């Protein structure tokens, strides 16, 4: 046990872990060109074990493509660093004032590592599009996609059943008490492409016979997932709906059909609906949504440029926050470095629509967002305190009688 404790508290381990962290960051950065930021985060940092493969784009890839280097992932390195830090603290800690700065520094570093784990667990990112003069009460995921069934029967509200795309495995049947029918996945492609069969002889057709697919010259095929531009993938699928009184056919669903960029000749058959037990259900594949208990209304979007140039000077969303539950209806300005923090979410000014007709806000949920600030403040205070205590001790030693007598 003693040997184990000495190992985990050693400075040598600290240096080794920090060196491995630098290697991990270097290799992850190199792989970012191939996999994009989001995928690299999962492959290298939000994992216990990471594997680096010789990239196909590098020279002599046909010779070296078998090279795979296993690495401790970000979680493992962070966990070991916490162990190392705490063991070193327990090994060397002395409850004396001259060690107070060191204690604070260690505490701040530990809090910083903990904040990393907290962010990995809690942080979620979304976006919200707002028309000028329009409002929204939901935020959408950049990466996750849901198959949704919406019952519009009630004139006051909609019943929305959202099935995550991770459940859309070919052949799988999905049922839920809120749905009076079952859903079977025929096909699902995380990225896909559409084409016209008349212009692509021999290409597979569409195994769907309802909605936009009915009597259409469309074909659908899988496309390799674009990790670099991951928000520009087009997930699509074919689903079969079976009701107790008979099947409702097979339907093409795609984010291409539920977004704002619907091909005109398909728009005539949207939304795709069917009826079961007197209720009309809409089916769609769309980005995962989180509904909020309040609205944000975009009054106007300001996009100033420097006079005589096209260089942007400022972007500003002038909004109103409307929460009927609390009675709030107040103006809110959102611009760069000035986000809206409300209800556990932070709304940042991110982008805007053509002709400044809309504003896009990036929305982040991260309950631990203050932890890095606290940890840096604690470390900074600890450094300052340690320096101050060392300086005082040195000055005392310099001015002591024994020091005076020993000087030439």
């Amino acid at each position, binding site marked *: *046990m003693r040997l184990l404790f000495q190992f985990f*508290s050693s400075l040598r381990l600290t240096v080794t872990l920090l060196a491995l962290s630098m290697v991990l960051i270097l290799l992850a950065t190199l792989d970012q060109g191939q996999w994009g930021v989001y995928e690299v985060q999962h492959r290298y940092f*939000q994992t216990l074990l990471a594997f680096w493969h010789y990239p196909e784009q590098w020279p002599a890839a046909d010779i070296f493509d078998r090279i795979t280097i296993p690495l401790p992932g970000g*979680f*493992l390195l962070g*966990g070991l660093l*916490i*162990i190392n830090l*705490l*063991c070193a603290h*327990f*090994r060397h800690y002395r409850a004396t004032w001259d060690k107070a700065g060191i204690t604070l520094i260690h505490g701040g570093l530990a809090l910083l590592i903990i904040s990393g*784990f907290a962010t*990995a*667990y809690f942080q979620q990112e979304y976006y919200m*599009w*707002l*028309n000028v003069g*329009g409002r*929204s009460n*939901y935020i959408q995921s950049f990466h996750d996609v849901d198959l949704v069934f919406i019952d519009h029967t009630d004139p006051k*509200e*909609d019943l*929305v*059943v*959202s099935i*995550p795309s*991770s459940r859309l495995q070919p052949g799988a049947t*999905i049922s*839920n008490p809120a749905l009076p029918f079952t859903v079977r996945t025929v096909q699902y492609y995380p990225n896909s*492409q*559409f*084409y*016209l069969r*008349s*212009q*692509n002889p021999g290409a597979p057709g569409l195994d769907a016979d309802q909605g936009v697919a009915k*009597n259409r*010259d469309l074909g659908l095929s899988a496309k390799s997932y674009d990790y670099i531009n991951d928000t*520009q993938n*087009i997930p699509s699928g074919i689903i079969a709906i079976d009701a107790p009184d008979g099947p409702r056919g097979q339907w093409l669903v795609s984010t291409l059909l539920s*977004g*704002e*960029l*619907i*091909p*005109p*000749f398909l728009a*005539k*058959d*949207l*939304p795709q609906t069917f009826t079961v037990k007197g209720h009309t259900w809409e089916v769609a594949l769309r980005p995962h949504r989180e*509904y909020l208990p309040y609205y944000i209304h975009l009054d106007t979007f300001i996009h100033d440029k420097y006079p005589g140039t096209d260089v942007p000077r400022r972007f500003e969303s002038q909004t109103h926050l409307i929460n009927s539950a609390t009675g709030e209806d107040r103006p809110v300005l959102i611009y760069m470095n000035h986000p809206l923090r409300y209800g556990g979410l932070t709304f940042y000014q991110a*982008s805007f*629509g*053509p*002709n400044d*007709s*809309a504003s*896009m806000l990036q929305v982040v949920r991260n309950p631990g967002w203050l932890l890095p600030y606290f940890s840096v403040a604690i470390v900074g205070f600890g450094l300052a305190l340690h320096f101050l205590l060392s300086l005082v001790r040195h000055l005392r030693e310099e001015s002591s009688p024994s020091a005076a007598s020993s000087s030439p």
Partner: protein
Amino acid sequence: MTTRGLIISLAASAALLLAACSRGGDGDIRVEHTPKEDAPPPANMADQPAVTPLPIPASADSLPPGHPPIASTTPAAPSMSGGSSMTALPGMTEFVAANPTPKWSPPADWVADPPNPVRKGSWTIPPASNAPAGAQPAEISVNVFQGQLGGLLANVNRWRGQVGLDPTLTDATLATCVASLTIGGLPAQLITLDGPDGRSLEGAFVFLPDRVWSFRLTGPTPVVTAQRPAFRAFLDSVQWPN
């Protein structure tokens, strides 16, 4: 101190790892009652999925060549592009924006439409003051598409279908409605179509190795007929950027 310190450290680290790795619930089906939705916002083209490279007709009323007519009883989906008759396919706008707009001299009676992210130029010729009630305007559009858009024959047949003509031309009969010309010094093909139901079209294609420019005048036959000289003059005024 040694054992206790090691146990505390290991426990703390294990707790953090378990918490971070156990983030789940992503596979749950959610059932929610939500307020009725307002009209969806327009797209920021830069943040939307990229279009597939294979040609899909971009005109609001077009169908693929040879495509059977579609009988639909559902109401048309509301336009989401701020009044334009064209809705952009994902990625189209980036491609359009990447192509510099040529210089040209449109006639004075062409009314410029609001800027459109998927068109390089768009004008309307309103109905004349003495036109019968319900007369449709004529429209002029300039577009650039990635690839070859299926080739000249496919696009001529597509335009034929738009004005009510039989979209069954072949390579052998293509010359009956296509003439050669130059636009800005580049070879082009001029298409002249008069449909049986009072609609006509005058258009031109410039096929480049990796893109196609299309110039199109459509509208009621009397208007298109009267505007054909002006449209030809407009084509003659086109100057491609360097």
